[in-house]
């Protein structure tokens, strides 16, 4: 296997949308199932606020959504 990771449940998800340069943050996963997943990034940051800052910088088309979700932490 080349790579992969589990994700925390959808309840932990936050969605970011960039619209005319402004960041819109919303609770919950991206809901529209007709749309396509365009890619994913794994980043190592201390908290959600920093993660959201990076999410807003994802080079995606304007108006597209970026869902932010923590990696699943398996208790040792």
């Amino acid at each position, binding site marked *: 296997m080349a790579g992969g990771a589990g994700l*925390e*449940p959808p*309840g*932990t*998800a*936050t969605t970011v949308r960039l619209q005319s340069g402004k960041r819109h*943050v*919303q*609770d*919950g996963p991206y809901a529209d199932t007709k749309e396509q997943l365009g890619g994913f990034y794994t980043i190592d940051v*201390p*908290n*959600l*606020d920093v993660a*959201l800052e990076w999410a807003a910088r994802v080079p995606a088309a304007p108006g597209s959504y970026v869902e*932010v*979700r*923590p990696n699943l*932490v398996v*208790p*040792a």
Partner: protein
Amino acid sequence: MPDAETAAAVEKAARDSYGRLVAYLAARSRDLAAAEDALADAFHAALATWPDLGVPEKPEAWLLVTARRRLIDRARHAKVHAEATPALRLVTEEAQALASRANLFPDERLKLLFICAHPAIDVAARTPLMLQTVLGLDAARIASAFLVKPAAMGQRLTRAKIKIRDARIPFEIPEAAEWPERLDAVLEAIYATYGLGWNAVTGAESRGKDLATEALALGRLLWQLLPDEPEVQGLLALMLYCEARRDARLDAQGGFVPLSGQDTRLWSEPMINEAHHLLLRAERARHIGHFQLEAAIQSVHTRRAIFGGKTAWEEIVVLYEGLVRLAPTTGALVGRVAATAEARGPAAGWELLRQIPPESVVTYQPYWAQAAHLLGQLGRVTEARTAYERAIGLSEDPATRAFLVRKFSDLSTG
């Protein structure tokens, strides 16, 4: 069975320090639910042991140390995320130091308020979360205030707390760049709750008053935590101006009385005075915001009580124009229409009303009530009738609905 004296001491500690204790514990354990549980355990322990041992000299410190111990026990059992352990150890040391020194521990409630209104938290959960964690209200009371089943409200709150913990929403004061937006989210959450309370006019329903009281309590707390923030003062002033008129909004038969018909002697003078001083203080900061403008509009309305029943509508129009420029919400646009119609006649008001995008007002009751009123004044009876029907259909409050039905039938007979 705890004696009355102990029960009173525990209750006092809960009332005075619940929010501060939860905030302090949660800011360090990063787990709101666990902090609340640990504190609940500590209160139980107080009820069980204080009757024999006596009420400790510093009840808050005692509760803090006890709750902290529970947090650590639980963390050991659950083997929580490894990085939480150093934080918990820090709480131990701090709590011990606090117990042996003065009765003071850092006030983290502001961080908690910012977390509750974080953009990643469900809008519907924000104020309930503030009421539960910062003011210590129980979920059943919050549920009844918001007209939600207790189980549903409990779920909403639990979900929000899990989100805070697992998505790692930081217990931090927002940075300068984010400050205005984040503060506005806190203010909006409080004001939305006040608005819910305001819309329920009917006296028999204590719900409106409850929600308004809780919103005011949050507003006061926020002002205490941020004494120099003009918009915080603006929001508190706005809520106080509105609250001052609560008793004048219903007549002896429980019917709705519009602002223009209210007996100004029923307005609360102390609340108006307090609002007035807050607004003056806010204006000195020379940093205008929409809550200050809305409060200023209410301030002009209340001056009617002093200046022989005359309202300075032209002044209100100017304030609404400022508000529309700053925040063109549907509420501000409709408010400007009403003020303009009073100051410059129904035709001028109608002209502005026509410019409001129709898609934004489909279910907005104040728009339809205003449209009906203006159309009636302009003699366009058929259109007025349709607008009244719509406004009546959108009115949730019985007193408001009865008032509109009366105006509707005046239209038909008149």
